[in-house]
C-alpha cells in the first residue's frame, strides 16, 4: 500500500514552487507602466491615462452633466468660451456683434474647421446643434437660453444670425456651453457607434462602464495640437479605488476626485491639484412643508449652518464658505452678502422660538453620490439639532434623489449642488431647477422673486450688478436656498502634466496639455 499519494511532489518542493511562482508574479512582472513610455528622462509622454468617476451618458452630450465632462472639450468644440471675468473668447466663432437695440446677434464662424469625418463645419451645423438641444427629450440646459431667441438663421457662408423679440444679452452663454454636434451622425452617438465632433481628439473605443479611448485628431484646426496620441480614460466609481489607482501610478490625472481626497493629495506635495470655477453647494428648503413655509424658521436654519467648519474640515480649503449662490467675484455680489449669515445658534434658537417651532422634526437628505456633501451633512445636522430642530437623516440613492430634485417634493431639507452657477446668475436663473422662478425645487414662487429674476435676466451689462445685488439680498432674506460653500471641481495630476484647464462648464480641456516624465 502506497503511503504517499504523490511521492514526487513533497511538501517542501510544493512550498518552494509556490514561493517561486509568487515571487515571479509579484516582483518579476513588476508594475505595468507600458502606457507611459516616457522613460523618466523628461521626454514627452504620448499617452495620457485619466481616471473619471462616472461613465459616459452619450445620449445627453449637450447637457451640462458630470458624466461627459471629459468629452465635451476633447471630441467637441464650442463656438466660444466664457472667461472668469465674464467676457467671451473665440473658438469655432471668430467674432460676434450685437445690433444697437440688442435684438439681433450676428456670429461669424471659422472657415477652416472640419468634423472628424472630414466634412466641413458651417452655419447649418450651428443651427442643427441648437435644434438638437431644443428637442423635447434633450434635457440640455442651453435650451433654456436658446428658446428665448425668436429665430436663428444662416445669413452667410460663415455666418449665423439670432434674432430676439426683446434684448437678451445672456444669449451668448448658450454657445459657451453647447458642444457643436455633427447632425449627420448624431443619431449614432448615444450608442457610441459614431461620436463625431470637431475637437482635438476623435472618439476611439468605448467599453461601457469601464473605459474609453480618445485619439489625436490630425486635422485639428489649431495646428500642432493636441500633444497626446491617445488618451485612455478609465471609469472608477469607488473613491478609494480612484485614490489607490493614482497613488500606485496607474493614472496620470483624475477628474472630479472627491474634494477631501484631492486636499490630502495636495498636502502630500506629490500631486498637483487644479480647481475649476466655483459652484454652489446648498441646503435647499421645501417651502411648501410646515413649518418651513415660515421665513423665521428658514432664517433659523441659515444661522445654524456652520459654513466655516464645513469649508475647513470637510473641504480642507478647496471650497470657500459663502451664503450666496453666485461666485463671490460675480458682478454685484458684496462681501457682506457672502458673509450674511454667521454661525449663530442664539439667533437661530430665538427665531425658532418666535415661530413656535422648537422641537420640530425635519428631514435632511444629502446627495448620496458626493461623499463630501454626506460628510458636510453631519455638521449641518449638528447645528440644526443645537438650534432646536429634531433632525431625521433622509437616505436616497442617486436616481431617487434626482427624482425629488426634479419634482420638488423633498419632505424637508436636502443638500446638493448647482453647478450651473459657474456660468453666472443669468444662465443659472434660467436653467437650474433650484433657482428658476416659475417653478423650482424649493417651491418658492413669489411675485417678488419672479420680478427680481426677470430684472437680472433682462439686464444689460451695466445694470447687471445692481439687479444681481437686489436679487441676492432678497434670496438671503427669504433663506429658501441656503448656500453652504462655493465648491470646485478638482483635477488632480502627476507633477509633469501641464496645460490642463477646466472651463466654466467644468469640462476638461486638454488641447494644450502635455506630460513629461
Amino acid at each position, binding site marked *: 500500500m*502506497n503511503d504517499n499519494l504523490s511521492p514526487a511532489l513533497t511538501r517542501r518542493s510544493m512550498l518552494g514552487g509556490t514561493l517561486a511562482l509568487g515571487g515571479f508574479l509579484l516582483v518579476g512582472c513588476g508594475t*505595468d507602466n507600458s502606457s507611459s513610455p516616457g522613460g523618466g528622462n523628461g521626454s514627452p509622454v504620448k499617452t495620457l491615462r485619466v481616471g473619471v468617476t462616472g461613465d459616459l451618458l452619450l445620449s445627453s452630450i449637450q447637457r451640462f452633466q458630470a458624466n461627459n465632462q471629459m468629452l465635451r472639450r476633447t471630441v467637441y468644440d464650442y463656438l466660444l468660451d466664457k472667461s472668469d471675468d465674464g467676457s467671451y473668447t473665440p473658438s469655432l466663432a471668430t467674432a460676434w456683434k450685437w445690433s444697437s437695440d440688442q435684438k439681433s446677434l450676428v456670429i461669424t464662424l471659422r472657415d477652416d474647421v472640419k468634423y472628424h469625418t472630414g466634412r466641413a463645419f458651417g452655419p447649418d451645423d450651428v443651427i442643427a446643434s441648437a435644434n438638437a438641444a431644443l428637442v423635447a427629450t434633450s434635457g440640455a440646459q442651453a435650451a433654456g437660453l436658446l428658446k428665448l431667441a425668436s429665430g436663428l438663421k444662416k445669413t452667410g457662408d460663415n455666418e449665423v444670425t439670432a434674432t430676439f423679440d426683446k434684448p437678451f444679452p445672456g444669449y451668448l452663454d448658450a454657445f459657451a456651453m453647447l458642444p457643436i454636434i455633427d447632425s449627420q451622425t448624431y443619431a449614432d452617438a448615444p450608442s457610441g457607434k459614431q461620436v463625431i465632433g470637431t475637437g482635438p481628439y476623435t472618439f476611439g473605443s468605448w467599453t461601457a462602464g*469601464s473605459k474609453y479611448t480618445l485619439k489625436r485628431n490630425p486635422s485639428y484646426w489649431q495646428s500642432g495640437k493636441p500633444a497626446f496620441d491617445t488618451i485612455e480614460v478609465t471609469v*472608477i466609481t*469607488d473613491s478609494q479605488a480612484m485614490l489607490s489607482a493614482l*497613488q500606485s501610478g496607474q493614472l496620470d490625472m483624475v477628474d472630479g476626485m472627491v474634494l477631501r481626497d484631492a486636499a490630502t493629495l495636495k498636502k502630500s506635495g506629490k500631486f498637483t491639484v487644479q480647481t475649476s470655477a466655483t459652484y454652489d453647494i446648498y441646503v435647499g428648503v421645501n417651502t411648501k412643508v410646515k413649518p418651513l413655509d415660515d421665513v423665521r424658521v428658514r432664517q433659523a436654519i441659515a444661522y445654524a449652518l456652520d459654513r466655516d467648519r464645513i469649508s475647513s474640515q470637510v473641504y480642507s480649503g478647496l471650497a470657500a464658505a459663502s451664503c450666496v449662490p453666485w461666485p463671490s467675484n460675480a458682478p454685484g455680489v458684496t462681501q457682506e452678502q457672502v458673509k450674511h449669515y454667521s454661525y449663530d445658534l442664539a439667533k437661530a434658537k430665538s427665531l425658532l422660538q418666535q415661530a413656535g417651532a422648537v422641537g420640530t422634526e425635519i428631514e435632511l437628505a444629502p446627495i448620496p453620490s458626493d461623499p463630501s456633501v454626506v460628510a458636510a451633512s453631519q455638521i449641518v445636522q449638528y447645528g440644526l439639532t443645537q438650534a432646536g430642530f429634531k433632525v431625521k437623516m433622509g437616505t436616497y440613492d*442617486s436616481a431617487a434623489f434626482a427624482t425629488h430634485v426634479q419634482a420638488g417634493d423633498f419632505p424637508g431639507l436636502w443638500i446638493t449642488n448647482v453647478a450651473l452657477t459657474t456660468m453666472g446668475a443669468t444662465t443659472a436663473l434660467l436653467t437650474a*431647477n433650484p433657482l428658476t422662478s416659475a417653478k423650482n425645487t424649493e417651491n418658492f414662487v413669489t411675485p417678488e422673486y419672479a420680478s427680481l429674476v426677470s430684472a437680472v435676466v433682462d439686464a444689460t451689462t451695466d445694470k447687471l450688478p445692481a439687479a444681481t445685488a437686489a436679487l441676492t439680498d432678497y434670496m438671503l432674506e427669504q433663506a429658501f436656498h441656503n448656500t453652504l460653500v462655493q465648491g470646485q471641481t478638482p483635477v488632480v495630476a502627476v507633477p509633469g502634466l501641464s496645460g490642463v484647464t477646466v472651463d466654466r462648464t467644468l469640462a476638461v480641456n486638454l488641447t494644450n496639455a502635455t506630460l513629461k516624465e
Partner: protein
Amino acid sequence: MIRYTLRRLTGAIGVLLIASVAVFALLHLAPGDPATVLAGPDATPQTVAAIRHQLGLDQSVPHQYVSWIGQLFSGHLGDSYTIHQPIGSLIAQRVGSTLQLTVAATVLTLVLGVAMGVALATSRRRVVTQTLDYLATLALALPPFVSGVILIFLFAVVWKVLPSGGYVALGQQPGEALRRLILPSIAMALPSAPVIARLLAAEMRRVAQQEFVLTAIAKGAGRRWITWRHIVPNSVGPAIIELGIRIGQLLGGAIIAEAIFARAGLGSLLVQAVESRDYRLAQVLLLLAISAAILTQLVAELCIAAIDPRVRVGGTA
C-alpha cells in the same frame, strides 16, 4: 437519477419565473426611473414625460412585464436604456472579468479551505490547530471591502508590486491578467475559505471515528493514505454543498470586489444599471445572477445525488 434531475429542473424553472416577477416588480417599485436619469437634474417635467413616452415607460407595469418576458422568450434581451447598446453584447464584454474573478476566488477558496480543514482535523499539535483557528476567525471577520483596501494599500501603494485594480482579458495579456486577479481573488476567498475549512474539519473528525477507518488503521494503513483515500472523500459532502452556495455568494461578492478593484465586470455593470434605473439591463443581470445561483446549487445537489444514492431515492444527505 433522471427522475430526480427532472424534478430538480422543474423546480428551478419555477423559481426562475417567480424571480422574474419579483425582480421586475422591485425595480419598478423603487423611486425614479430611467427617464429621470436621462433627463438630468435640471429637466422640466415635460422633458421627463417625453423621454418616458419615448422609452415606453408610460405604459402599465403589467404590460411592460409581459412585453419584456415575451422579448426574453423570443431570445432578445433588448437594448440598454442608458448605454443604448444591446444588453447581450454588454454582458459579453463583462462576463469574462466576472468569471475570471469568480473562478479564481473559488479555486482559492477550495485550496485554502481544504488545506486548512485537513490541517485542522489531522494536526496533533495544539499550537498548530489554535493558530489555524485564530487565522480562520480573522479571515472570516474580514469582509472583502476591508481586506481589499488593506491589500491594495500594501501591495499597490506601499510596495508597488501589484496593480491596484483594473481588468485585462486573459487572452490578450495572460501575465497581466493574472497579476490583476491576485488581490481581488484573495480578498474574496478570505472569508469563504474558513467556512469550508471548519465544515471539512468537523466532518473529517466525525468520519475518523467510523468503523471502516478504524479497520484501515487496524490493518496497518498509513496515516496519510487513510486521510486522503478514506476520510477526505467521505467528508467533502457538506463542503461541496457549502461551496455551491459560496459560489453564488462569490458572484454576489464580485459586485463589491469589482468596485474596490475597479474591475469592469457584471457586478459593476449591475450597480451602474440599478443606479441609473436602467430597468432592462438590471432585470437581465439580476435574472442572470439568480440563474447562476440556481444552477450552481442544482449542480451541487446533483453531485451529492450521484455520490449518495439515498438522496436520489427520496431522502436527504
